[in-house]
């Protein structure tokens, strides 16, 4: 099944991540770990747990970058999980058919029962979204929480990826990016969401919303003048402020 689906996907489910508001708290990463540790790809094994070199299987990781210099510099927190690419080589390189892209919703999955643990798919993923579980000997990855989004034992509102529902600032959104009228597609259009490493040609489904331009002025709603010079220039300095208040009649 490692050939990509031939017919155009009816849906392209994925995430939209808002770099303008992500505070880098790692909540989505740990909640993902927590849900998935007992989920479809369980366990997410941890190695050398209390030792010198702790490591483990994670589907979602948070990086932080600094970009630009001086006053124009920014710190940007940057979460990254599988982008459920449209034409990903991680699927096509797989020799066993374990790695596959679902025709119906575009989710890229690994069938653990087929995987021989050759790691090639992880080499083919530019985004570092594949995680090898040495203990089980198979490749694991973000499932877009297939066992949540379609899980009929969960309340409807809970049928979203764990990382989305837990993000405290609401920097993560989930939906059908193949449908230009969907709320996520509109958000992407409005905020000029972009692809990571478009030059790879994998056509990621997940989109990133760039940090917004810095607000100048008071950033209020009424488009009121954002004072550029000192207030003093606009105020009436004819009277010392102290004296200006002498005659105010104010009632308690």
């Amino acid at each position, binding site marked *: 099944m*490692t050939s990509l689906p031939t017919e155009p996907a009816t849906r392209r489910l994925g995430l939209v991540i808002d770099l303008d508001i992500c505070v880098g708290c790692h909540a989505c990463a740990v909640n993902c770990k927590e849900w998935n540790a007992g989920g479809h790809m369980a366990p997410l094994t941890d190695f050398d747990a209390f030792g010198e070199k702790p490591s483990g299987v994670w589907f979602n990781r948070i990086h*932080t970058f600094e970009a630009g210099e001086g006053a124009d*510099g920014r710190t940007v927190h940057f979460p*990254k999980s599988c982008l459920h690419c449209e034409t990903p080589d991680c699927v096509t390189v797989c*020799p066993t*058919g374990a790695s596959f892209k679902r025709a119906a919703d575009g989710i890229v999955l690994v069938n653990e029962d*087929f*995987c021989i643990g050759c790691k090639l798919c992880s*080499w083919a993923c530019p985004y570092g979204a594949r995680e090898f579980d040495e203990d089980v000997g198979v490749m694991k990855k973000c499932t877009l929480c297939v066992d949540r989004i379609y899980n009929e034992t969960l309340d409807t509102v809970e049928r979203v990826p764990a990382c989305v529902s837990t993000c405290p600032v609401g920097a993560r959104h989930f939906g059908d990016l193949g449908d230009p009228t969907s709320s996520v597609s509109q958000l992407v259009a409005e905020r000029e969401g972009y692809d990571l490493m478009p030059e790879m040609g994998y056509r990621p489904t997940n989109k990133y919303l760039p940090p917004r331009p810095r607000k100048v002025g008071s950033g209020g709603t009424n488009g009121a003048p954002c004072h550029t010079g000192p207030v003093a220039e606009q105020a009436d300095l004819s009277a010392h402020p102290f004296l200006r208040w002498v005659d105010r009649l104010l009632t308690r």
Partner: protein
Amino acid sequence: MYPAYSVIFFTSASGAGYALLALMNMLALIGLLPAERWFGITGFLAGLTAITAGLLSSTYHLGRPERAWRAFSQWRSSWLSREGVLAVATYLPAGITALGWVFWEQIWWLPAVFLVALATTTICATAMIYASLKTIRRWNNGWTLPNYLGMGFASGGLWLCLLGSLFALSSPLPALLAIAFVAIAAGIKFGYWRFVDTDIGRSTAGSATGLGRFGAVRLFAAPHTEENYLLKEMGFKVARKHVATLRRITWLCAFAIPLVAVILALLLPTLSLWLLIVAVLTNALGTVTERWLFFAEARHVVTLYYGAEAA
């Protein structure tokens, strides 16, 4: 990329093995090599052992080797699968050709043609596993395929040469072929090195994060403070000075010494066996070093998320 020993051994040994089989049979097909029984036994044994050992070692690298058979299923899309299929498929013509050669001392041309073709394509398929990875610019380029073919045929040629000397073949052809292949392989390797030394990659931390719009992008904090799978597997780095030493070892052992040894062997027939043993062994060492470097020097774009500026 982490240079896994099983993969290094596999690609070097199987490359030599397939090339040896291909060369033996090519020469035999055009009548330049007689189908002598003991030569055949030794030649096929050497080739098939190298291939088999290589293939077996490659399964060491697998998390679930008991399922390795599944790897034959995806030849339509996967170079790894194609390589598996081709590698195994080669055994069939190899077996048949070997039968004819050893028992009847005849070259059955149909299976031999298949053998030459399959063995050569298998090397190509191995190369393509790497050459097709867009994530690794140092593999994903026009040099990788020739590099694998060149290195394989250089080793195969030297082996053939050694066999020739062992069985006192009078023809200088294997030696000339070996000289040619080693020289070509060296040329390709130097070309490859020049390429990787000048190429800066297609991606940058800016394109990986999309934050290039703000200026230079620097990693402030990795997701985890200790090494994760990605870094162990894809973040492997060798120090520049080690690269230089290892490259020197590669060109000396894989190319220079064998070349000199083969030429000397031509000139000093009495010493030729010993010289050719030296040539084969140093070439093996050189090839393994080359392969180690091929992995170790490769830079994966995922490192852009871990502090690399370009890859």
